[in-house]
């Protein structure tokens, strides 16, 4: 990933949409602190072959999401975001391939039960950022401090679960154009 110290302050949003026919579509959106789009990257559909399904077993999704899709998308960005958010738990695996903090965003409707949720997920630790609840993989607990150091206060009002709706719509839009072409 290219990194520039002068790049504008940005937030990353990384997710994967599972299309029943095409396979996995990755989307990576970078926003400025007011929520406006700066960059968008998306992958062509990714489908695991039979050998991968057999050999990766339960680690297949973290591999596809984190290593194949997530790592590739992060590498395409010209910006270095303060934080990469994801709404997909297997995507947390991308943290092993980047120095940028990666956090799982709890949807708003689940945030009221975040404490019990973390009890069920001992591999993660929860913290609150602005109006949002985030989960970090336990090996990267120290990321919380890094995030807080660089977090722009004007982004406090942002709902970090909302941009994933935009990514899904953008992927849908791109697919519509691709089908029409």
């Amino acid at each position, binding site marked *: 990933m290219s990194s520039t110290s002068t790049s504008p302050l940005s937030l990353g949003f990384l997710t994967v949409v599972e299309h029943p026919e095409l396979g996995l579509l990755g989307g990576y959106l970078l926003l400025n602190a007011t*929520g*406006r789009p700066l960059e968008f990257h*998306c992958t*062509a559909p990714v489908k695991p072959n039979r050998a991968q399904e057999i050999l990766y077993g339960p680690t297949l999704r973290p591999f596809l999401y984190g290593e194949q899709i997530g790592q590739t998308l992060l590498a395409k960005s010209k910006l270095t975001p303060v934080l990469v958010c994801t709404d997909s738990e297997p995507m947390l695996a991308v943290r092993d391939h980047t120095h940028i903090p990666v956090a799982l965003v709890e949807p*708003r409707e689940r945030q009221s039960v975040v404490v019990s949720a973390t009890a069920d997920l001992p591999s993660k630790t929860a913290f609150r950022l602005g109006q949002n609840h985030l989960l970090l993989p336990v090996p990267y607990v120290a990321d919380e401090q890094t995030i807080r150091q660089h977090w722009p206060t004007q982004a406090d009002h942002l709902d970090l679960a909302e941009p994933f709706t935009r990514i899904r719509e*953008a992927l849908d*839009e791109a697919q519509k154009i691709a089908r029409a072409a």
Partner: protein
Amino acid sequence: MSIVTTTVKLDFPIEPLSTDIAAALDRPPTIDVLPSRLIITPDTPQSVALNIRRTSPRVFSFTFPESRTLAAPLSAPLCVPPSLPLSVSPSTTNPFATSPTSPRQTTRIKPPGDIIKLEDRLYYVLQPPIETLIQSDSLHFPCEPFPYQYQGIAFLYPRYAAVLADEMGLGKTMQSITAIRMLIRLGELRRVLLVCPKPLVTNWRREFGMWAPEIPLTIIEGDAAKRRWQWTEANTPVRIANYELLMRDREVLGELLPFDLVMLDEAQRIKNTSSTTSDIVRSIRRTRNWALTGTPIENTPNDLVGIFEFLSPGYLRHGLGPKRLSELVQDYILRRTKDQVLTDMPPKLYRDAELDLSPEQRATYEMAETEGVMQLNHLGDEITIQHVFELVLRLKQICNFDPATGTSSKLERLEADLEEVAASGKKAIVFSQWVKCLEILGHQLRRFGPLQYHGKVPSQKRDGVLKQFKDDPTKHVILMSYGAGSVGLNLQFCEYVFLFDRWWNPAVEDQAINRAHRIGVKGAVTITRMLSLGTIEERINQILQHKRELFDQIIGQTAAPASLGLSQSEIFGLFNLRTPKGTIKPAA
């Protein structure tokens, strides 16, 4: 029983047989080496090499321009003047400033159908909800917009050609001003021209002050030299001009740099493409085109063609069927009615005051109609629509007042109703199409403190009249002409509307009624429609009612409830007259 045993001796000699096998046994063995495959049973499993792909997926990338929202694009300060009411603190009014458990309303921007390029479409798809943009830009409002108003802003925001056709009173002004405000903040608009009817200029200035106080305005007015300077030199992002003035400044308009946006208020003014107004408006160089109108179809579907000649020349043509027309325009028009979006708004209560003429009025009316029809018949092939129209107007005036004695059954009824209005401390609007009629009413109703608002009242005094009407508790009634008082005024503190006589087109009546029945109204609005039985008024009403129902059926959602005025043949038909093309019977 005993067992007997016998012994046999076995030491007899044995001689080997003389055979080849015996010799072979004595011969020493010979060893030969022969080539052979050695088969060893494996003791490890068979292995198969599988290709595990680790190639990276293909990536498509899009980069968008850095937003300029954090830098104020205007020279004027971005703070709200202290005299203006600010929005209440975000925690109580802002639906997206959040408690984790509160439902959040979000309104997304959708790219219009005429944007083709994927990158351009994604730019809009990936924008945050309108509510987030407003909060991020620290835009303050005097009151919290309704959800449908956010949708209206999201509709205008990405569009280069758009008609906001909400019913009167739903806040087209606020929606368009907010969309302009956001696009100016974004840097997408730097030169905006708003064109509106002359009486509405002060209203637009007031609304901009309320909804976008930081945006400097230039009102185009004054003598030719001043206007030229305002057109060419004034360094403000928004200019407001009236339609009439465009005619006079046509030459200057041709010299101007292109506008980023030209927005037409009451855009039905350009429905006739052959009119000078339409011609001038269409000649202004511009990038975006927005039209505001509560009645996109006033008379015929061709009205829409006229508006689209401004929005997207050549996109529509005359003669398209309603279904095809609806398909073509649906992505360009946003139309909501109060019934659809303000389900909790107080109702409009209609009362049809069907009155008999006074004996004096009846006598005058019968004589005038008989004589008038005879005169028209005598004209033969020379008869024109103007002749018939004059008779209609004369008869309608008699329905208001008997010219000889001044008696009026409508006035008697109106006075009785106003007694009740005044006694309860309420206020009422009385509409008529004639200033003369309003002046008579002003005299007759003086105990109710009537104020006048019509073409004879200078425009610079009109705001003062409205303020006095609102603030002075002794002023219970305002007398308005349809022309001056049907659009752009906010009189939602009035609970009673009287239509002393009826306009030709129900759409204009609707606009007049909606001066009172609009956002902010606290109680039901009672509308009294006065109608003289057995007269031309009744015949006109029947035709218009029939046409309104028919038109609603044809147009459906996009433009309903549009309505039609009277056509030439229908006006002839009011008196069963012969026209140059033969006899025309009444239409209803």
